[in-house]
């Protein structure tokens, strides 16, 4: 079965991103496909490479990036949400004349259409939020 996942909250503040990650890995281990994780609202903050969580704590961004690298999961950050919250890749940096980027490997910024498309193409769409 093909799952798509929607994450609406940022890392550490709410459990949403953790729950979504655990669900995604369990789905993959169960032999299912996870076609896309769409990060909306504060969820886009999961894609920052600038976090330094305490050493004895989980590293939420790195965990997601590893899922993209190892399992080919498509990690998409909503562009409008990124603009409101300061998540920037090379394209956004140039377009909005910013002087830095902060997006981590394995994440890409794209439109809300990617969420609708995931809802159409996946067998199930599961939302994690506050």
């Amino acid at each position, binding site marked *: 079965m093909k799952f798509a996942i929607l994450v609406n909250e940022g890392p550490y503040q709410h459990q949403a991103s953790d*729950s979504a990650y655990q669900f995604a890995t*369990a789905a993959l281990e169960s032999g299912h496909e996870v076609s896309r994780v769409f990060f909306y609202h504060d969820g886009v903050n999961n894609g920052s490479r600038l976090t330094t969580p305490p050493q004895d704590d989980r590293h939420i961004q790195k965990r997601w990036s590893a899922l993209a690298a190892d399992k080919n999961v498509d990690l998409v950050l909503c562009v409008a949400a990124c603009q409101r919250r300061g998540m920037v890749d090379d394209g956004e940096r140039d377009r909005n004349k910013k002087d830095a980027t902060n997006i981590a490997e394995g994440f890409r910024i794209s439109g809300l259409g990617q969420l609708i498309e995931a809802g159409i193409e996946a067998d199930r769409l599961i*939302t*994690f939020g506050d």
Partner: protein
Amino acid sequence: MATLNIVNKSPFEKRSLDQCLARINEGDALLLIEDATVVAASGTAYTEQLTSAGKSGALYVLQPDLEARGFADKPLVDGFNAVDYKGFVALAAEYDRVHSWL
């Protein structure tokens, strides 16, 4: 056609559990995750209402979240089944749609 309804907040904090239970269909399932898991343990002010909900639909609680909050040792409300994340995935696949009551 049946729905897997997910609630993630304690009903003492937010009304999402009450609001979900008011619109749950016969044959639907309810899965408590995150902070909502605390009321799957028996003995709270919500035990009666959940027991009665269990008569028209299946009740599940996410065991890792229950354990995190220190309730692995407490008896569950009648009708609840504990699942791990793979069990959660299986439920999402089994039911026709997933509705998160955020």
